């Protein structure tokens, strides 16, 4: 490991993040802060969504799991991408047309109940905080691997940079940073991957590169019923969980209208499809050039960082490693700032008054709490990708039923929605906690706890439908009007009389939330 080159790479990424974020210092008004005043074009927004979404789990975690467990783990990349297809066909356009900024706003506007809003807020904050933990742990691990620095320093570095960029810039600067960081991450992973492929195929012979092991040893890892259950449960969690992630939903409100929201999502599908081929290269080559069986999942997470140096010794290898390290830091920073931003937005609306000052005050707990948790948790040996998968199950068990039923089912009631979120969220969060504590072991109980989505998501859906059918008198009176707003195409949405208002911002129709859209 060449510490100076890696350190330069890390500092360069930090400088770019802060520098581009500083460009957004001019964003002063409240709408600017929250939704970049909804002026972001579909392509740039797609790059921003992808940049925010490609986290430590995708960048480091998938390749590590592939190298350790084999091709079954390819489902992680597919699930992360397919989640956007489900989001596209079931919620993208209606969610944007609802004009609300967070899932809490959506729940309140659709069901007209503060109890639903508060329940949703609790889960937004919970998911947003928990999701940052693996990123920060990964940052510590990466800095330790690349520089030999103590693990806490990476965690603290990322937390500080995120805090500064969120407080100063708000959403507009973050949008710009995110779209830049998608391309940075893609390049940082693609260039070394190309070099590694050349070495593997024997096109390029750097001095001292090892020869690959025979392919025959690459047998599958997970087999039998438990392995199959794990794959299917993972598919449920990732396919349905994406729509419930706070930083993903918040990003959709920066689209100008429902049509643009759909186009953005298709762009995201393309960009993610290109990206997720790369971890496959690292994982596959990691199996062929394995130094020995990896000791723990956590150690496997460093596969991406170590592989270039192993295959290409010498200064070229050091350059490639520095590039990969830079990309990894871009991944930590972008995902964390997106999450911190959405958590801070929700906190500031519900606790701090919803203006720019409240937002800045809310940013501190949104970053510092996950930082503290990850410093405590850094000893556990779980893979970053697996931790993230568990958090996807929580999102899939709470917000997926709320959004899907809220958008397509007229008879959803507030009571049913609250009950469903509590049951689904409670079950999946309990499974997550027990897994983190190491309860369950290797039998079926352990498998069910490690991948809870297959049973917690149906439980949440059934409770929500059942609860709503039991309280038919409490179907909100405005349900039809609200559904019309969600599904009417933009050309018709303005109505016959006030067509001139079509270009304006319809979100101001959300009761009691209009302060956010006050123009300055």
């Amino acid at each position: 490991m060449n510490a100076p080159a890696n350190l330069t790479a890390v500092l360069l990424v930090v400088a770019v993040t802060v520098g581009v974020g500083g460009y957004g210092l001019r964003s002063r008004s409240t709408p600017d802060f929250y939704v970049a005043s909804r002026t972001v074009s579909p392509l740039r927004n797609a790059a921003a969504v992808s940049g925010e979404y490609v986290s430590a789990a995708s960048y480091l975690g998938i390749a590590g799991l592939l190298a350790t467990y084999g091709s079954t783990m390819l489902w992680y990349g597919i699930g992360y991408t397919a989640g956007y297809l489900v989001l596209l066909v079931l919620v993208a356009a209606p969610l944007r047309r609802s004009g609300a900024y967070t899932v809490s706003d959506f729940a309140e506007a659709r069901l007209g109940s503060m109890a639903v809003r508060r329940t949703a807020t609790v889960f937004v904050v919970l998911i947003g905080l928990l999701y940052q933990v693996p990123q920060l742990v990964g940052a510590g691990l990466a800095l330790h691997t690349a520089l030999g620095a103590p693990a806490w320093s990476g965690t603290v570095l990322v937390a500080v940079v995120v805090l500064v960029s969120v407080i100063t810039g708000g959403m507009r600067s973050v949008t710009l940073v995110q779209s830049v960081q998608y391309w940075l991450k893609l390049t940082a992973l693609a260039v070394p991957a190309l070099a590694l492929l050349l070495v593997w195929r024997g096109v390029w012979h750097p001095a001292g590169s090892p020869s690959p092991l025979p392919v025959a040893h690459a047998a599958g890892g997970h087999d039998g019923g438990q392995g199959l259950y794990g794959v299917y449960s993972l598919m449920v969690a990732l396919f349905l969980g994406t729509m419930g992630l706070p930083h993903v939903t918040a990003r959709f409100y920066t689209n100008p209208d429902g049509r643009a929201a759909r186009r953005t999502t298709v762009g995201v599908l393309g960009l993610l499809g290109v990206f997720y081929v790369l971890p496959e290269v690292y994982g596959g080559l990691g199996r062929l050039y394995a130094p020995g069986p990896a000791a723990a999942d956590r150690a496997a997470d460093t596969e991406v960082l170590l592989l270039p140096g192993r295959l290409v010794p010498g200064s070229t290898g050091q350059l490639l490693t520095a590039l990969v390290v830079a990309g990894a830091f871009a991944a930590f920073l972008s995902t964390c700032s997106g999450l911190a931003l959405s958590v801070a937005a929700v906190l500031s609306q519900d606790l701090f008054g919803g203006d720019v000052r409240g937002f800045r005050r809310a940013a501190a707990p949104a970053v510092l709490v996950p930082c503290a948790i990850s410093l405590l948790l850094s000893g556990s040996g779980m893979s970053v990708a697996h931790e993230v998968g568990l958090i996807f199950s929580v999102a899939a068990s709470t917000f997926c039923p709320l959004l899907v039923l809220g958008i397509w089912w007229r008879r959803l009631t507030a009571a049913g929605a609250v009950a469903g979120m509590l049951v689904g969220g409670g079950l999946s969060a309990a499974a997550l906690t027990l897994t983190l504590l190491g309860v369950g072991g290797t039998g079926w109980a352990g498998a069910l706890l490690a991948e809870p989505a297959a049973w917690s998501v149906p439980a949440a859906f059934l409770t929500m439908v059942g609860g709503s059918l039991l309280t038919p008198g409490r179907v909100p009176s405005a349900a039809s009007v609200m559904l019309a707003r969600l599904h009417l195409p933009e050309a018709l949405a303005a109505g016959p009389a006030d067509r001139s208002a079509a270009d304006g911002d319809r979100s101001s129709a959300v009761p009691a939330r209009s302060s956010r859209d006050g123009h300055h």
Partner: protein
Amino acid sequence: MGDPSRRVSVSHPRTRAARPGRRDAAVRDVHEQTPLGEVYMKALMRTQLRLGLLVCAAVCLPLAALPLLLGRVPVPHWARLWGAGLPWLVLGPPVYALLVAAGICYVRRAERNERDFDEHVRRS
């Protein structure tokens, strides 16, 4: 919209201005959620939901079959490309191409549904 520019209406401008246009009546129905407007909305929602579920099923069912198939079917030796096994080839670019293609198809159909609905409401 049945191309209103081709119609020539011969009337005094002031009388036209005073009378609400018949053309917008259905649009108003949809907006004010009269029983007729609600029928329109339900039809649109049903079309869009059916499309969404169809696309989901068309993508998720083949994907769900893959873990079963890949575990059971013995891989012939010639099916290895550069030493990479069948799962590594199938669960890569082909799946992502399928996802993007499904997304593009969906957006086209969904926008066409909305255009049709728009035309239908304005014409009636």
